[in-house]
């Protein structure tokens, strides 16, 4: 079992889906010849031809709306939005149509479209290239929203998203693109809708997704040195959310801290807190806290490290809940 980066794992997932299902298409800006600005679609146009893997004009609303139309015609489009903020011009098509089409048509016209979005920060990018829009999508009923945190899981989640009968927003944590993992790209992997405990612990549950999972694991390591035994839960799937695994974990630890890069206010962390409070209230030893990006526009590159949740900020929150 060789090590793969997340970029390679995603590339392999696309390749196998294209190979196994002749209805699968890959489209987006620069996904063809260039192989995507992050090389996730590297070599796919060469291998599957310009009808299965093609560049679109520079128009995100069209990428989403045309993908929906392609799905109506029986295709399975996997569309790439080049960067997080550039998925915003497509929000109308995603919210008003992609999320609602199966409902509107009473199942006559399902739209199994996957929209891949390299998201979040930590790579020193320019403005509009480090956004964390997951809450916008998670609040939109009719969409599924998944966020891998490691290469192997990214592979399985993407395969499942492409096979999924519903539209899936697939958020790829840029800062983890070049992270490596040893693992098995065959077999099933955990299904959409299931969270996973990456580190069992007894004192407090750290809930995270995407790039913040690695940060949470670092924090757990550091905490161990202080005799704090933290459990780390990787949500993987924001919608549907694995309420059982979340509740089971927090009932055991009695404490939880949620971590994400997106701004605090009305971020997905609030949903996690609300669910934990509803399902685990009598087990809670302390308030459920959130460690997130601040309520500010994403900072310029030289300042982003003050914005992103750090091990120190996570530990600070953990200390507040464990010493409650």
């Amino acid at each position: 079992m060789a090590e793969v980066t997340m970029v390679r794992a995603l590339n392999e997932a696309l390749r196998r889906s294209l190979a196994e299902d002749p209805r699968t298409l890959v489209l987006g800006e620069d996904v063809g010849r260039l192989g995507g600005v992050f090389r996730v679609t590297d070599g796919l146009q060469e291998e599957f031809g310009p009808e299965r893997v093609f560049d679109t004009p520079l128009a995100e609303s069209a990428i989403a709306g045309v993908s929906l139309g392609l799905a109506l015609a029986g295709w399975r489009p996997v569309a790439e939005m080049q960067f997080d903020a550039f998925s915003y011009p497509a929000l109308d098509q995603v919210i008003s149509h992609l999320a609602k089409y199966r409902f509107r048509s009473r199942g006559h016209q399902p739209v199994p479209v996957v929209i891949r979005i390299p998201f979040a920060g930590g790579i020193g990018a320019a403005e509009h290239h480090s956004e964390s829009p997951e809450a916008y999508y998670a609040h939109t009923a009719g969409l599924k929203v998944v966020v891998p945190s490691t290469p192997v899981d990214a592979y399985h989640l993407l395969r499942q998203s492409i096979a999924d009968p519903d539209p899936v927003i697939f958020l790829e944590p840029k800062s983890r693109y070049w992270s490596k993992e040893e693992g098995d790209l065959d077999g099933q992997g955990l299904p959409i809708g299931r969270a996973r405990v990456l580190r069992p612990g007894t004192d407090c549950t750290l809930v995270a997704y995407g790039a913040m999972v690695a940060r949470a694991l670092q924090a757990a390591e550091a905490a161990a040195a202080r005799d704090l035994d933290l459990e780390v839960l990787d949500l993987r799937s924001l919608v549907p959310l694995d309420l059982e695994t979340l509740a089971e974990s927090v009932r055991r630890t009695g404490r939880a801290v949620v971590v994400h890069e997106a701004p605090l206010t009305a971020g997905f962390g609030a949903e996690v807190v609300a669910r934990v409070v509803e399902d685990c209230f009598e087990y809670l030893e302390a308030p459920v806290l959130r460690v997130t990006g601040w309520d500010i526009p994403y900072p310029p590159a030289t300042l982003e490290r003050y914005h992103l949740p750090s091990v120190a900020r996570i530990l600070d929150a953990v200390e507040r809940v464990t010493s409650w």
Partner: protein
Amino acid sequence: MATLARPERTEDRGPFRILSPEGQPSEEALAELELSEDQLRELYRLMALTRRMDLEATALQRQGELAVYPPLIGQEAAQVGSAYALESSDWVFPSYRELGAALVRGVDLVEYLHFYRGTWHGGTYDANAHRFGYVAAPVASQVLHAVGFALGARLDRLPLCVLVYFGDGATSEGDFHEGCNFAAVFGAPVVFFCQSNQWAISVPLERQTAVPIWRKAEAYGFPGVQVDGNDVLGVYAVTREAARRAREDRTPTLVEAVTYRLGPHSTADDATRYRSEQEVERWRARDPLDRYRRWLAEAGLADEAFFQGVEEEARAFAGRVRAGVVASPPQPVEELFRWVYADLPEHLRRQRDQAVRFAGEGDHGG
């Protein structure tokens, strides 16, 4: 016919038409039509049924049987002429004002009107059955779906085209532009059919665009045609040619059918606030049914008996649709949860059970 071969030259002659407003035919163009006498009569019948059904729908709304309804009166020729020019294998993506096109495609109008009754979004029909999509409220948004579908059909080497209806106001939206450009670059078989009815609710055409809509095709490199939208034969001829160009040459066409919305924007609108009765009168004088009926009669293609027969059929038809609409109960609450995802996720199952419980306890307070 010059227009159809070189539509970009439309400008020189004003809108293409086969029957003049007075009902005088262009014999040359007529000859090219290749429509049987039955078909020529059928076009009238479809317009008459549409007119009658449209009035019935407005009445149904006034009586509280529909939540809202956007009348199409005045646009019968634009809708019937264009829809009739398509093959059944072609696809149609409507906006929200195309009851006439739905009728021509064979959609059950009771099931169509369920959108306006608030029974279900998209009504209750299967879009695939007659290749007629669902009402799209967000203006111009459906243009992209039509382009995507056409691109998909092209990838499948299917010999079909996709016709998408939208209004004059829709041409100001980014989605209209992105769709036209996308179709042009990919050679997607699309007919962009604009019912230029002179108004976008209260905004007149000249506040929407500084040029006639057909000329916008120039920005994409495919033909643009302006046609008299109140001449059913002209609309039929232009659309048939545009559809052929889409299927055979993979060349999209932008058709501007110049017509007029004789009614309010919707049953919720009061058009007297923004336009004059004289203007409406001028257009009433160009009624698409009158024009065509006059020609059919003068050409000896239809007599009083025929027109009376159509009248009776239309009345009976409208009655049947009305009865069907009025008799329809709302959907059970479970349906709200059934179609969100292919399978019901746990969190939604919990919510459905609650919703059903409260509905069962007779809670209609929401």
